[in-house]
């Protein structure tokens, strides 16, 4: 069953300086019950606006939204259900726990609003606190707690009503990297326990991939690609998705007879593969970690530069007049100037990008 359905959702607004800006364009999506689904994109791509439309904080310009089969927003039919009637759970980036209420009162708030009997409130709050590892902190005020604990209050407050849908708006961005990882596990665990459907908005690709069953990448108000994290990482449909989901090398090549030659020097064979049946000018996209760097086999070149990172080594190897970045485990150690060989695995091929797309992005970035 589809828990969340968006049909032709569009949001545009008019400002004095820029005229009409389309923040979200013709957005279509169905999220299955119990699925964890991420919206990923750079800031200003429209992901938060879409989430706020689902929550009911923003009106639509066009289209309709269904939650659990119920029509909650429709511009044409003039249907708009206010946020308090949508029965969602939501967690915000800045935690938004109420500083004048203690932990217990914060978490009990949604039940008190619904006028539940006192005994039931007590039981359900205790359960929610237990699930979020906040036992014993009932009487404490949020300002005396750490960022991670505050975010757990927000989570407990969201799960206490047992919602079908949980909206998470960059909930981990205000936490330090170490906490972020453990909160990610926490969210996953709670989902298993309660079975809610998650929409997770983030600009951090690793976070999105670690958490989601499926995800989408947005840019400039448009959905670029929808799929599982593995599909998106290994088969990005365009250059934008490729570069947004991790580090990328883009090399201009000419493909002839299943062989890719360097564009600037067509005698320089870079890659050959049996499955390569394209022809003409292409951009070869490779992942720095999907290149095998060794001392005996592949395309012969030299190390231009070594950079030691905490988890891996990063090398720039010379390719024609340019270079390609390669990442290897620490044990694979080279020095700058060392001769070496590289073997490229599973590259992606894109038609050279048109200028105007880059210009549009430029324009958007100045907003």
């Amino acid at each position: 069953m589809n828990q969340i359905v968006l049909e032709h959702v569009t949001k545009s607004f008019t400002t004095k300086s820029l005229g009409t800006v389309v923040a979200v364009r013709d957005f279509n999506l169905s999220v299955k019950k119990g699925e964890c689904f991420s919206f990923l994109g750079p800031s200003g791509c429209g992901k938060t606006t879409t989430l706020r439309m689902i929550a009911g904080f923003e009106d639509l310009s066009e289209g309709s939204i269904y939650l659990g089969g119920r029509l909650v927003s429709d511009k044409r039919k003039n249907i708009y259900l206010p946020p308090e009637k949508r029965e969602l759970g939501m967690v915000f980036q800045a935690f938004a726990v109420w500083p004048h209420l203690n932990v217990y009162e914060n978490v009990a708030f949604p039940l008190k609003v619904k006028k539940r009997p006192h005994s039931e409130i007590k039981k359900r709050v205790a359960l929610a606190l237990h699930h979020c590892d906040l036992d014993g902190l009932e009487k404490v005020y949020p300002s005396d707690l750490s960022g991670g604990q505050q975010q757990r209050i927000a989570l407990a407050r969201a799960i206490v009503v047992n919602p079908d849908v949980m909206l998470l708006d960059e909930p981990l961005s205000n936490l330090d990297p170490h906490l972020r990882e453990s909160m990610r596990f926490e969210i996953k665990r709670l989902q298993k326990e309660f079975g809610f459907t998650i929409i997770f908005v983030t600009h951090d690709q690793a976070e999105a991939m670690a958490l989601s069953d499926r995800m989408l990448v947005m840019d400039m108000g448009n959905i670029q690609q929808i799929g599982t994290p593995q599909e998106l990482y290994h088969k990005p449909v365009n250059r934008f998705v490729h570069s947004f989901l991790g580090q990328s090398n883009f090399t201009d090549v000419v493909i002839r007879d299943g062989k890719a030659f360097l564009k600037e020097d067509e005698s320089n064979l870079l890659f050959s593969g049996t499955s390569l049946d394209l022809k003409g000018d292409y951009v070869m996209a490779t992942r720095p970690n999907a290149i095998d760097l060794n001392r005996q086999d592949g395309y012969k070149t030299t190390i231009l530069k070594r950079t030691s990172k905490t988890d891996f080594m990063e090398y720039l190897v010379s390719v024609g007049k340019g270079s390609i970045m390669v990442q290897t485990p620490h044990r694979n150690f080279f020095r700058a100037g060392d001769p070496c060989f590289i073997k490229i695995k599973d590259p992606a091929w894109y038609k050279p990008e048109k200028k105007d797309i880059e210009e549009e992005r430029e324009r958007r970035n100045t907003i």
Partner: protein
Amino acid sequence: MEKVELEGICVSYGEHMVLRDLSLKIEPGQIIGIVGPSGCGKTTIARAICGFIKPQQGTIKIDGKTMFSHKDRVDIPPEQRHIGVVFQDYAIWPHLSVYDNIAYPLKKRGLPKEEISPRVHYALEQVNMVAYEKYMPSQLSGGQQQRVAIARALTSSSDFLIMDEPITNLDAKLREQMLVEIRILQQRLGTTIIYITHDQEAAMQLCDKIVILAPDGSIAQIGSDEEIIRNPANRFVFQFIGVSNFIPVVIDDGKAFFDLEKKIPYKSHIPGKMTGTKAMLGIRPMDIVFDEDSPVRATVAQAIFLGNMYNYFVRLPGMEIRVQQIAISENAKSYSEGQEVGLAFLEERYFEREDA
């Protein structure tokens, strides 16, 4: 001759001893990184060299000249030590234009006007900021302000700079770019730079030599990035440089065992790098691979796809360790939670065990 020589420096704030008998020699023409966890006293070293704090003990020499000596009661004030300093918060004076900021050290040295102008321009050229001479600091971005700060430090002293977390306040992309620029600048001018940071990655990328401070303020290791990665001096350095697993091991009957809830044999000979019968094995998650033939059996507790790699938490009896595998292609084999796997250890290191 050493550029900077610290000998027996002791600094304490009240009861708390930050630096205890620290000695360090810094050769000219290099970038020296001083790295360590927060509170280890790295900033205190910089402040002592600059003259902003007075050590209780020891000697500080710059270019062989004594700047501070407790014994001989020498304490040259900061304005006479001729060090260029770049601060974390830029410390660009907001009421002065870019030009006036950079010209300030020259004016204080009493240089005639006609000499100041070309030297300011030269400094601006070095940091690619010539066009901004007339701007006020508030009109500049964070990265540009940091460049002005570097130019000012250069006019103050072109052969010796101290940078204290100079790029921490910039965003990730700019940080990368500034690191490259600092390196290029240093190579062109041959400046000696002391670079203070908590970011070991930036230090490894930028510095010729890295001084790693332990939390108690003592020096854990001095070396190039290669030496530190390939031969970490101790467990602290290994742990500080990257994600790591530590497994206690014991030698019994000529074989090596993991000394966990039960003894698990993992090598049928005594590892060459190991001395004694008990040790702590340190290994990076990337250096553990799945190997069905290995005698070390474990269960996958968690498998997380992060794009460039899979991150596994793998359970050994009484211990969970982290394993990372590069995710090369969509069809590459991945392991799911609950699966039993064999583990092989590629590049293990041995450190002292506390209970040994």
